[in-house]
């Protein structure tokens, strides 16, 4: 297990990470705010509270690298450099959406940013991402594939099957498990035995694995760096597991702590560990500079929303196009 040199990162990288996380946060908060206008008519799964993982991991992805995500994909899309306007158009069901409005929030794609796709059947993207890495290898293409998956997704058999195949063929897959301790309303302790360990499962299949605190973006960044250099040195897959927490409801724009499915204080504890706040404190950015950044980002975001709102719906002919290539 590599040692994690904490907080030795240069200021510039830190600032970029802050920027990335804040951007995601502000986009998602705006989605939450505007969802009740009933114009984004599709299920949305917000990542508010979990931004550090997307930002810390994607900071390492280079142009040849690819990533794949699942139902909770906004953060991955944005951290990888996906086009905000195309994403919002997709949520609004417009023709300028990254999938022409045919997919909705659960099917984001931005091939230029390396995002192969996002699909909401839990676990299925793990195999598909593994296949992309396999074909990289067969075709001798450079680049790794980062597969983002939740703690719930590790319960699907396809997770173990994909680990096996990635290990067997020495595929350059970075399995990124965002363990937010919940699958919908169910705590991990009600779904998995207390002695179960996602990292150990990877190891038992022959895959080296590491874990870290997912709300410390510098830890995420450093661990990912180590993981990737381990991968490159050894030409093998690696699994990283980050613990984190989703602030809002599983699906939809609202807070839902009142439903009582989480322990008292659990949310507050995690909100206290807000990755954005702690990095901001660590960076010692002044309030003015921070607010300027917020305003600047919000302006761009509002602009993108306006674009999405005023864009066109796909016309009738789109119904039957793209069924077959």
């Amino acid at each position, binding site marked *: 297990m590599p040692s994690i040199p904490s907080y030795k990162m240069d200021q510039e990288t830190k600032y970029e990470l802050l920027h990335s996380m804040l951007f995601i946060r502000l986009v998602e908060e705006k989605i939450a705010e505007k*969802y009740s206008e009933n114009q984004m008519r599709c299920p949305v799964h917000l990542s508010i509270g979990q931004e550090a993982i997307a930002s810390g991991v994607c900071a390492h992805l280079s142009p040849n690298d690819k990533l794949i995500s699942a139902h909770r994909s906004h953060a991955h899309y944005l951290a990888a450099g996906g086009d905000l306007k195309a994403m919002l158009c997709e949520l609004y069901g417009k023709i300028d959406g990254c999938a022409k*409005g045919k997919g909705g929030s*659960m099917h984001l794609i931005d091939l230029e940013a390396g995002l192969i796709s996002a699909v909401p059947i839990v676990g299925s993207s793990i195999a598909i991402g593994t296949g992309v890495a396999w074909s990289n290898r067969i075709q001798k293409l450079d680049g790794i594939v980062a597969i983002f998956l939740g703690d719930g997704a590790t319960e699907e058999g396809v997770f173990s099957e994909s680990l096996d195949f990635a290990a067997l063929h020495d595929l350059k897959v970075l399995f990124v498990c965002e363990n937010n301790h919940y699958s919908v309303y169910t705590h991990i302790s009600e779904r998995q035995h207390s002695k179960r360990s996602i990292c150990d499962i990877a190891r038992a299949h022959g895959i080296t694995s590491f874990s870290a605190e997912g709300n410390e973006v510098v830890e995420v960044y450093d661990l990912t760096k180590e993981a990737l250099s381990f991968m490159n040195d050894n030409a093998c897959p690696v699994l990283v597991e980050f613990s984190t927490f989703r602030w809002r409801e599983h699906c939809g724009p609202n807070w839902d702590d009142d439903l009582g499915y989480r322990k008292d204080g659990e949310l507050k504890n995690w909100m206290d560990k807000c990755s954005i706040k702690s990095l901001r404190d660590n960076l010692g950015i002044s309030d003015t500079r921070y607010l300027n950044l917020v305003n600047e980002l919000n302006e761009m975001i509002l602009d993108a929303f306006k674009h999405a709102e005023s864009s066109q719906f796909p016309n009738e002919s789109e119904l039957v196009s793209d069924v077959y290539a």
Partner: protein
Amino acid sequence: MSRIINFNEAILEATEEILTNHSNSIIVGLGVPDPKGIFGTTLGLTEKYGSNRVYDMPTAENAMTGIAIGAAINGLRPIMTHQRVEFSLLGIEQLINQAAKWHYMTGGKSRVPLVIRLIVGRGWGQGPQHSQFLEPIFAHVPGLKVLCPSSAYEAKGLLWSAFNDDNPVIFFEHRWLHSTKSIVPETPYSLPIGKCNIVEEGTDFTLVSYSYGLTECRKIAKILKSFDIHPEIVDIRSLRPIDHQTIIESVKKTGRLLCIDNGWSHMNIAAEIISNVVTETFKSLKSPPQRIGIADVPIPSTRSLANLVYPSLKDIAHKIETIMERKIFPDQFSFPENQDVPDQSFTGPF
């Protein structure tokens, strides 16, 4: 005693009666004990019946289906729920290869009294992987039974029938029916499996559908009344076995047939119905039977396209003119258009 309740309340009521009256019944499904209780159909069950009867589950649909089968062959009578039919595809090997054949391939020694509730979605941008209707896939397979309630009354009665049956029964619930109301008896009752229900007697043509399709049938029938046209509306209710006889009798009377399918327009339930009617009572047909289903495409998320996927009342009206072989609706007649929500109170997110 009867009263008017919602479809989802009817499911909940049947489930409670089952848990009360049958100590070997258990409920299992992802989200069953949730605060949202599977669209309200399992609310409060854990509190009332305890965690030894009511189970959440990991996202492991394949094993969980096999586990439910194992539980069923060993003395329990599980009701398993998937919030979307798509999730059940992960466990379909267990249903098609194992459950459907278990009684037969054990030479009748063992049985699988198992109910699988599959919810099919529609609207609010659910998109390609959360709004399919895959009934034909299940209804094709001997050894399974497949039920599709179309009202709260049907829902309670058929859930009871499914539970009482000693075979694996797939129970399809259309999400948009959950908030519909009908008169439902307060006490337990069951409805025959494999019997169509004649929802409305009529003489001019036979209108066959199931599940949410019945809602459309009722709407168009109401409009047709003002044109003095009276369809006989047949609710198939059970897609396996299908009560072909009732449909044939109806067609013998009316001479005309339109099937409204909830799913894709090819290789569907409607094809089975029409093919059978034609073979059995060709001579009674005054005009070629017609079917209508959803567009033969993956279901898009955006409402501008999704509303085009589903047959509108206007599309149905057009088909009716075809089978009636005459113009019925004035050109300017305005039909209500398709919406992406069951009613205006619905605001997502799923």
